[in-house]
């Protein structure tokens, strides 16, 4: 098993928390680097959306959640998956089209879900997961579960009708849901300047009567703190919150991206705001972790990812024989 026990609480709340936050971000980074490498070597089919540079938002959000809380994720979903506690081997295996992969090789990167950690799934459809998270929150409310649902989505998703309809339903029914926008400034090639005529995407909360907050999405502590407030509000029955995490993806949108719509300078500027380096800086300042401990954490993450890749490589490929039976869940007698 490549999951670590989930830790809930402020990333700077204790040494253990700091260690966990850094480990999670590092695991995401190393995972993305590893699968990029596999992809480059032609071992992964399809396309790939990497979240390198965006590791703080999944990590900070999920540290404010319990394992029973639910998330919906996106095409750029590896980070959400890992932060919520998924098993790295089954993730890699899925990308490699193996039977032991989360989707048995049927879904691939864009469709990884993990029932055990409350991950209702990545989604190949922009904004597709938002109404689903709202529905999960509705179930929580109706069944008195006390759980919260978080929908991760990108800036681009906010111009889909699905966002609008879902946000309004969440607002009028006061559902325990958090609308977590990872604003990385582009929806594929479309910049927020061209796609929106407002200054902060969180202003859209006003349209539904829900709080909207914009914050530094590369500061895992800030992400955690904002999420914690939203989670409290949700659990108290006060309804949804729209959080806008301002961040940046270092890599192209997907493998076919030639990055023509943005400058190298901009990318370099953002690399300086690396969420991992920034957090290291903070924990050093606060004397929560030593340099040696930091190095050891990264080493652990690397080892875990390497082990996951090795194990997944050895696994049996998915078998077409089962496909027809996989379409419907059997009607139980």
């Amino acid at each position, binding site marked *: 098993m490549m999951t670590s026990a989930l830790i809930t609480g402020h990333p700077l709340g204790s040494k253990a928390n700091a260690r966990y936050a850094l480990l999670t971000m590092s695991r995401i980074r190393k995972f993305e680097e590893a699968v990029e490498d596999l992809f480059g070597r032609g071992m992964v089919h399809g396309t790939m959306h990497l979240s390198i540079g965006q590791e703080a938002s999944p990590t900070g959000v999920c540290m404010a959640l319990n394992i029973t809380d639910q998330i919906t994720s996106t095409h750029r979903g590896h980070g959400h998956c890992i932060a919520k506690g998924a098993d790295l081997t089954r993730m890699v295996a899925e990308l490699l089209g193996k039977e032991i992969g989360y989707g048995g090789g049927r879904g691939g990167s864009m469709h990884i*879900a993990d029932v055990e950690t409350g991950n209702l799934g990545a989604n190949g459809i922009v904004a597709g997961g938002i*109404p689903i998270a709202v529905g999960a929150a509705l179930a929580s409310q*109706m069944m008195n579960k006390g759980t919260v649902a978080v929908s991760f989505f990108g800036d681009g998703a906010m111009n889909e009708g*699905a966002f609008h309809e*879902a946000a309004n*339903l969440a607002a009028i029914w006061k559902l325990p849901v958090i609308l977590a926008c990872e604003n990385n400034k582009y929806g594929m090639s479309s910049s927020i300047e061209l796609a929106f005529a407002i200054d902060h995407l969180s202003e859209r909360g006003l349209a539904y009567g829900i709080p909207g907050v914009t914050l530094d999405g590369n500061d895992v502590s800030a992400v955690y703190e904002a999420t914690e407030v939203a989670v409290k509000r949700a659990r108290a029955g006060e309804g949804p919150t729209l959080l806008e995490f301002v961040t940046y993806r270092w890599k192209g949108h997907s493998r076919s991206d030639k990055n023509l719509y943005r400058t190298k300078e901009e990318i370099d500027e953002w690399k300086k705001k690396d969420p991992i380096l920034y957090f290291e800086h903070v924990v050093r300042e606060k004397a929560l972790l030593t340099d040696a401990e930091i190095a050891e954490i990264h080493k652990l993450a690397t080892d875990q990812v390497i082990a996951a890749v090795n194990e997944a490589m050895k696994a049996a490929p998915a078998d077409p024989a089962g496909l027809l039976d996989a379409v419907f869940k059997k009607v139980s007698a």
Partner: protein
Amino acid sequence: MSDRMLTMAQALREAMSIAMDERPEVFILGEDIGIYGGAFGVTGDLYHRYGKERVRDTPISELGIVGAAVGAALSGMRPIVEIQFSDFTAQAMDQIVNQAAKIHFMVGGGLNVPLVLRAASGSGTGAAAQHSQSLEGWFANVPGLKVVIPSSPYEAKGLLLSAIDDPNPVIFMEHKLLYKIPGREEVPEGGYRIPLGVSRVLREGKDLTVVATGIMVFKAIAAAQELEKEGVALTVIDPRTISPLDMDPVYESVEKTGRLMVVQEAPEHGGFLNEVIAKVATGPSLGSLIAPVVRLAGMNIPIPYAPQLEKAAVPQVPDIVKAARNVVANWR
């Protein structure tokens, strides 16, 4: 008339009520299903009986509603979504087709979507092209959805209960003209189930096998009764669910009659009942055919408004009578 000769609206309501009594996780959501009782009166008094949480009025947001139902279904509930007119499934296609239908498969089986989407379908009320379509064919071509088309109150109740039990997404297409027509058979009290994927032979006759869905079953039976007087005997088969589609009774019947007619309200071009023709053309009863297949379907036009135009747009009883009479007379 027995007091169990319900209308389809009553039968559907009864099914939902039984399901809600049986399982706390069943709830209904949709536009105007609460105090209003539903645009076609199907939910009726359920709002007063089960409260506003379980009979949940929504804003006009079909995509959001269906999406919320998908999320709730993934999280332990069993939602029944009412879409006021099936034409508005167009608004919700992403959640129906790209989400509900595929999640179980894509994620490797760990999640499933026990969701029923009920929609008022078909023409005949003068509501024109955007409120009168028969869109079942869209859903039938999407693997991962089950598609039910009840043709009577009796079928409607038993099929809806099975649809609610089903752990998969089920599209339930209700012809709006059938809502108020009392059925030909009593609707049993209590929670009987009609399994999804079993065709029903409604009457047997030696001359022609008629496969029809929804309101066309009703019309085909009327046609059969008329033709009986002329000595022409029709077998009428109602597949009841078009996904899955149970063809065995069709093959068996065609082996006896040697003639096949399909009748649908949806536009002919690319309509679902072509599947029945294709299955017969590639299936075991092909050799028994002594006549070309007859296809009766809606005209390839949007449904028009004026009554004289609207009637002309879809098959009516006399059209069925005439086509059946001809094929039996011309091919012996």
